[in-house]
């Protein structure tokens, strides 16, 4: 499998204060780092999942990868070209190969647009006027398992699961190489959730598209993804093959996440690790290892020295002084 996307030391900043205010308050930076020094790779036909709590920077990272947010430093290489340096015209071509499934399925569809128009809108945006829209709409709806009747429906006439399917159809319109799915199953019932995930898996097998999935539902990660990264305060704390992470997590935060997962049966459940305290604010990042304020295994060193990534081989790494 060849490399599709390679992100190196990516940093995304947001301004939270005016320059004047920060100058008056001395030394305080007017920016916060929503994503800090993140590096990862996605291969062709692979599913990469990103797990982390709300506010950890998952969606920001996704938006930066798609080219919707400016980056402060670092590079995003897509099939050899750096997206961060692209002129607008080239960026437009890049966006044809990468598409997005938004978090809120009904909210991301225009309430005044019929489904058929919504899913063929990408052709209009990219000036592909030679396509037969009727025909394409039918083909796309068929791909996601909806009948052609849905062409004339409006978003409010769709159920949550159907709206998701329409979102998938729209994402597939331009035959992208990579689909970025932000919480593709949030708010869905277990049965419908299964349907959507099966659909994504099937499309990947048939079309060879790569998936970048953001979620905080650990139960589904195990079944859909090849590689997983755990994000905390805008950094990756652990990244590796999904199977290995679930069997033998190295970072205490990953361990806590996995052990905290409430399950119906207690078979195979880990001994629960309770995290103390609150998620620190991005404006005042803790010193040393940023997780030490909540880490049950933290020692003196953790409070002062920032750990570097430890490579366990097999493209598996964790950022911790005392990995489990």
């Amino acid at each position, binding site marked *: 499998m060849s490399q599709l996307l390679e992100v190196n030391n990516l940093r995304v900043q947001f301004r939270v204060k005016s320059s004047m205010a920060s100058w008056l308050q001395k030394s305080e930076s007017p920016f916060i780092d929503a994503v800090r020094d993140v590096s990862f790779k996605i291969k062709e036909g692979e599913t990469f999942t990103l797990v982390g709590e709300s506010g950890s920077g998952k969606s920001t990272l996704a938006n930066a990868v798609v080219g919707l947010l400016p980056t402060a430093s670092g590079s995003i290489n897509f099939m050899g070209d750096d997206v961060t340096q692209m002129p607008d015209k080239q960026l437009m071509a890049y966006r044809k190969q990468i598409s997005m499934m938004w978090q809120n399925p009904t909210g991301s569809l225009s309430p005044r647009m019929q489904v058929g128009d919504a899913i063929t809108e990408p052709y209009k945006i990219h000036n592909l006027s030679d396509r037969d829209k009727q025909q394409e709409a039918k083909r796309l709806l068929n791909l996601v398992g909806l009948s052609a009747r849905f062409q004339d429906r409006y978003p409010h006439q769709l159920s949550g699961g159907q709206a998701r399917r329409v979102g998938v159809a729209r994402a597939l319109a331009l035959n992208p190489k990579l689909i970025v799915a932000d919480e593709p199953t949030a708010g869905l019932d*277990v049965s419908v*959730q299964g349907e959507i995930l099966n659909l994504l898996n099937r499309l990947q097998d048939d079309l060879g598209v790569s998936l970048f999935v953001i979620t905080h539902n650990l139960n589904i990660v195990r079944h859909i993804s090849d590689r997983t990264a755990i994000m905390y305060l805008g950094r990756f704390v652990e990244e590796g093959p999904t199977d290995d992470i679930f069997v033998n997590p190295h970072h205490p935060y990953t361990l806590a*996440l996995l052990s905290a997962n409430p399950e119906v049966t207690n078979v195979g459940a880990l001994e629960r690790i309770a995290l103390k305290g609150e998620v620190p604010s991005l404006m005042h990042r803790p010193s040393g290892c940023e997780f030490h304020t909540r880490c049950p295994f933290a020692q003196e060193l953790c409070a002062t020295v920032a750990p570097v990534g430890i490579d366990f081989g097999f493209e598996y790494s964790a950022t911790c002084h005392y990995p489990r």
Partner: protein
Amino acid sequence: MSKATDNVLSIRNLSIDYATQEGSLKALRNVDLDIPKGQIVGVVGESGCGKSTLISSIIQLMANNAKTTSGTVFFEGEDLLTMSPTKLKSLRGQRMSIVFQDPMSTLNPVLTIGKQMVDIQYRDKRSKSQKRQRSADMLAQVGIPDPASRLNQYPHEFSGGMQQRISIAMALQAQPALLIADEPTTALDATLEVQIIDMLKELQSSIGCSILFISHHLGVIAELCNQVVVMYAGEIVEQGPVSRVFKSPKHPYTQKLLECDPASIAKKTRNLPTIEGEIPNLSDLPAGCIFTSRCHKKTAQCEELKPKRHAVTQGATEKHFVTCHLESL
């Protein structure tokens, strides 16, 4: 009536219709539900199964096109359906309170937490400083550090988990008899979810209230609740003690639902189980069992005859009920 004293809430034969352009939509049908004192009762079911309608009828804040066609809702021995609006108003927020899914839209963004927590004690005759003290104590109980000074902060200055804990503190401030929690952990990640569950358990035992907990996360229900109610398309299909229902589910829908939970599938699979078919149209109900069209165990009589509620365990103290023909055999 001894029944009313054991149960904080006792719903009998409750049916609610919505008037729509396509005719009347039967959102709830013949619902029987008891919430015993000091117990946590969980409700599971897909979206559109009537969970929200059930809540709105308990707090008696129903949509304009909703009509209660039959039944009673006894709360602390009195029927809410025939109660005067003034009396109802005095119950809401005082004897029963509610925590919603999204804490960000529950809290007013332009008022400080302290102002909001004091405001909702408007019925109390105490002085403002006493009310403030009470709010600070409540915040301390839900684990907010340095509560007295944090009362001066605005909602956006708290993290998502803290905001949800603040809404819980506000709901429990008046020491209600019943707390309704409508998917309070859906917006939170796994570690915070566990924090909230543990906290709810603790508060429940210290205050002694009952909790009606709505969720579609089966694991959370299993961990938190004593009793579970499984709803499908406006009907209760199975109810009983959590350990019993989740261990040996009797209704085909409950069985399927548990199978579909990705957490229960130990082996990695790219083809997750689903429940075939769609929820039936509630304005045009099938003659027989409501689950027939999607049931993998259906027989001829399921299509024609409505199943009755049966007790699975005869004579046991904790009743396990199921509404299915297969169990009547």
